[in-house]
């Protein structure tokens, strides 16, 4: 082959650069499309719901009159359910991920378990709702309670946490593990002093992404029977309950409840168009909850990673 002349080289480069720019433009267009959609959604909710953004809206129970209806029981319910979900899913998920990465022998049983965890992540959430209705609500007798809902959502996000934990652990270089084992540490000492702390930023990110998904779930919560109209809060521990008794530390866990997405769903299905304003306002609040959870995740990850360098 004859060597190219300077002219020809410039022509080749120009052609290549043109394609470069075409792709760049396409990329920016796709990105902008996604951004426009989310900004439009949020703006729409803000504009529609703007007249409901008062303190009363946050501290009123549901009501037949749209202007007086608030989201108190919904956001309290969402927070409590998330608390139960986190308490159940985080220890289970982290322990499972740690076991699979650090302890499990690489054999076909482990392999089958791994494949099934990935499959679990793809199970439609309504199926978890059906499972929970049978097991938590009826079999274990937890009823249509915060506990049932929290455990259901915990099952739902367990695969997310397991996968995040495993990925975080896998990003720790082998030489750190070897360095620890080489001074005579056991596997558990290596996990406790090194693997868990160094994987923590990744695990936390996974946990919060999981919770952010769970807080927006509607189908499984409807299946296990969350109420749509509820005008009381779960009992606060050690305060007076009905008939002169005092609420125990965990009584709230068996209380009926509602959550944000169910409240929104309920309002959108009302004939009175005034309720659409409530739905939009509540939708924005839910969106804000999810976004602030993500913000916390990003902040924590940044803060914790600062000290972890290999």
């Amino acid at each position, binding site marked *: 082959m004859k060597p190219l002349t300077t002219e020809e080289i410039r022509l080749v480069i120009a052609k290549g650069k043109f394609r470069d720019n075409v792709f760049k433009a396409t990329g920016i267009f796709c990105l902008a499309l996604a951004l426009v959609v989310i900004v439009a959604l949020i703006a729409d909710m803000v504009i529609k719901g703007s007249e409901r953004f008062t303190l009363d809206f946050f501290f009123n129970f549901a009501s037949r009159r749209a202007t007086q209806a608030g989201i108190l029981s919904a956001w309290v319910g969402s927070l409590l359910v998330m608390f139960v979900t986190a308490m159940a899913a985080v220890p289970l998920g982290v322990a499972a991920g740690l076991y699979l990465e650090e302890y499990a022998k690489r054999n076909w049983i482990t392999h089958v378990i791994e494949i099934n965890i990935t499959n679990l992540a793809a199970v439609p959430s309504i199926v978890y709702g059906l499972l929970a209705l049978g097991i938590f609500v009826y079999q274990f007798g937890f009823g249509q309670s915060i506990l049932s809902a929290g455990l259901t959502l915990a099952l739902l996000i367990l695969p997310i946490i397991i996968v995040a934990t495993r990925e975080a652990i896998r990003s720790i270089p082998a030489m750190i593990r070897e360095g*620890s084992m080489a001074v*005579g540490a056991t596997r558990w000492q290596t996990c406790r002093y090194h693997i868990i702390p160094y994987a923590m930023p990744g695990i936390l990110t996974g946990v919060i992404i999981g919770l952010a998904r769970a807080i927006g779930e509607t189908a499984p919560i409807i299946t296990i029977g969350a109420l749509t109209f509820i005008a009381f809060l779960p009992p606060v521990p050690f305060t007076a309950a009905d008939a002169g008794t005092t609420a125990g530390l965990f009584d709230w866990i068996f209380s009926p409840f509602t959550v944000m997405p169910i409240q929104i769903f309920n309002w959108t299905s009302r004939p009175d168009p005034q309720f659409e304003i409530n739905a939009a306002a509540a939708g924005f609040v839910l969106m804000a909850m999810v976004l602030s959870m993500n913000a916390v995740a990003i902040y924590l990850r940044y803060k914790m990673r600062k000290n972890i360098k290999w």
Partner: protein
Amino acid sequence: MQIQDTPSLKAEARNLNFFYGENKALKNINMPVYDKKVTALIGPSGCGKSTYLRSFNRMHDLYPGNRYEGEIRFFPDNTNLLGADVDPIEVRMRIGMVFQKPNPFPKSIFENVAYGLRVRGENNKRTLDDKVEHALKGAAIWDEVKDRLSELASNLSGGQQQRLCIARALATDPELLLFDEPTSALDPIATGAIEELVHELKKRVTILIVTHNMQQAARVSDYTAYMFLGEMIEFGKTDEIFIKPKDKRTEDYITGRMG
């Protein structure tokens, strides 16, 4: 320097074979390791010298599919380091290791050195302080870090990090110290500091060092072993190996005709 009588044995490999799955990486290795001496393992890449070194502290046990045959006897108690009844953790508590790339933990300088002691259940502040200081002095890095023990180890330079890793290994008073190409990631000045340190350390601990650098082997070691394709070709006093090797293959390697 002439070595008079044969020094006492610290360890001895006897008919050692090693397998990565089906692949035989070490072939019938027999070699003594003398007490309070530096023994260098040299040979071309892939000859099995690192594999051999990592057999001493059972590092291969961390990964599935690895298998040893034969023995590594450890003295004075004549334990077989590879014995099925010997816990690898016990082996690693007696034998320290320094890796090819400095691998300090992303923790403070103090915690890096104290880690081996903590693993042994030592939590007394005074004891830890004393032992950490002693180990850092032993690794010739005390003066550089004594005012910033609570700083992150990752802030140190590569050479300092490697000396910190040596301090980490020294803190628990190992009987044998394994070095796996400890200077391959370091510049010449940091390398010189580590070599000097190795020379100093052999007064108190037996050292086995893998090196890619023949000059380094000649400078730091009392004994040298030449390995090739998983076999131990020649073992002897360093002066003799480098001046008049008995085996043709050793001579080729040392004179630079191969490898």
